[in-house]
């Protein structure tokens, strides 16, 4: 068993008196693709934001390559740099071109010289099929194109793990394919990924492991075939039957 890239131990997050995540623990091994499914409001996005410390966990510990990132005194900016985050609403920097969006982190955060950053950015944009649009501004792109740039921006920082927060939920159905294809390619290249998604077909095809969350905790996890064909938990079964009404499980 290889050492985990990421280890989450008894993660809890509350807002005031409302517990959003309770006692979530799991390991992520290198090149593993985990798809997190579950109804809205079960804390999936909150969990992702806790993992890269955009939200401060209430309790629990998170380790990135054996180092505890939730320990006091850890440089959180440095932690976030090592984890790529892709947002549901893309959040491309509106005042920068596609190229600028990918290079700004490399230049201002990693301190890579502008010329080198540009070369590397073009490579990342090539990976997501957006190199030819590098001079455009976000407002001139379709949703699918924006999200692919969002992925390239995260890749540019050479992340140890990529976190996707419902990357296709804000897209028109005909645009989700191009983004999922890029993600599938990344998975095939060996990128470690945690993906919160409602795309069951994608989960079944690409995931190494599916985690089903309910009420802020992990209800069931397993390989996709097992989760989708023979779910152990009654709740998982119920959720899947609502999501895919045609198929009985």
């Amino acid at each position, binding site marked *: 068993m290889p050492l985990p890239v990421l280890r989450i131990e008894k993660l809890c997050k509350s807002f005031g008196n409302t517990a959003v995540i309770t006692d979530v623990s799991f390991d992520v091994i290198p090149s593993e693709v985990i798809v997190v499914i579950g109804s809205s409001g079960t804390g999936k996005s909150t969990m992702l934001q806790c993992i*890269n410390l*955009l939200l401060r966990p209430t309790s629990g510990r998170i380790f990135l390559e054996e180092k505890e990132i939730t320990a006091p005194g850890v440089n959180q*900016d*440095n932690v*976030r*740099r*090592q984890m*790529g*985050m892709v*947002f549901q*609403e*893309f*959040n*491309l*920097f*509106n*005042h920068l071109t596609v190229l600028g969006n990918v290079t*700004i*982190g490399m230049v*201002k*955060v*990693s301190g890579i010289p502008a010329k080198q950053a540009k070369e590397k950015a073009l490579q990342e944009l090539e990976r997501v099929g957006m190199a030819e649009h590098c001079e455009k*501004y*976000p*407002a*001139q792109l379709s949703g699918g194109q924006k999200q692919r740039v*969002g992925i390239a*921006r*995260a890749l*540019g*920082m050479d992340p140890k793990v990529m976190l996707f927060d419902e990357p296709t939920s804000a897209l028109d159905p005909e645009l989700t394919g191009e983004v999922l294809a890029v993600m599938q390619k990344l998975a095939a290249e060996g990128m470690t990924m945690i993906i919160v998604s409602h795309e069951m077909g994608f989960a079944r095809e690409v995931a190494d492991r599916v985690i089903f969350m309910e009420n802020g905790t992990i209800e069931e996890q397993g390989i996709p075939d097992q989760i989708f064909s023979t779910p152990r938990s009654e709740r998982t079964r119920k959720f899947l039957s609502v999501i895919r009404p045609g198929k009985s499980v």
Partner: protein
Amino acid sequence: MKEFLAYAKMALPDLLQGTVVTLELTAGALLIGLAIGLPLSLMRVYGGRLIQPLCTAYLTVFRGTPLLVQLFVVYYGLPEIGVAFSRMTAAFLTLGCNSGAYQCEYFRGAIQAVSTGQMQAARGIGMSRLQGIRHIILPQALRLVIPAWSNEFIAMVKYTAIVFLIAVPDLMSKAKILSSQNFAPIQTYVLVAMIYLVLVGALGLMLHVVQQKLAVPGLDFGMDKR
């Protein structure tokens, strides 16, 4: 008409001297206002529970009292407690501090118009809060603020006119003197109005060009696209 032109020819050199002072006051006040307003707006948006009330207090005082009262307090009032300024300094300070309060609110609006996702994404690639503000939030907010800020610019050209009440030799002061020396209020003040109009028109045009130069697709709020 001929009479007016002759009068204008006589009065213009003096009035133009005053115009220079008016422009100096406008530029100085806007710069002081910028130096106060921008940091204040950042404190108001990102500052903690201790800082925000201080900002609010500043805004309440400077936006809640007449500019003229502020000018008199600074020029006539403060010397009584041992703080005396020259006319010009008093004018710069008052106009600048006042403008700072208004500029703060313009900047705050523009900063808050940049979506919260922008900061999240900045933090997501490892930027600190300060880097996020500097590289992501401000470049967008400063573009969004131009239309509102132009308003402050144009208003300031005209607000400066009140400094004639502490005898700063601006355009209005010169006009007052000329008008009473020559018993020509109509000619003088029409001429002065025309000068203000030309100033405001030229500055408005200038700001429009700046706005166009800085425009980015999707961030061209308030731009005329035709």
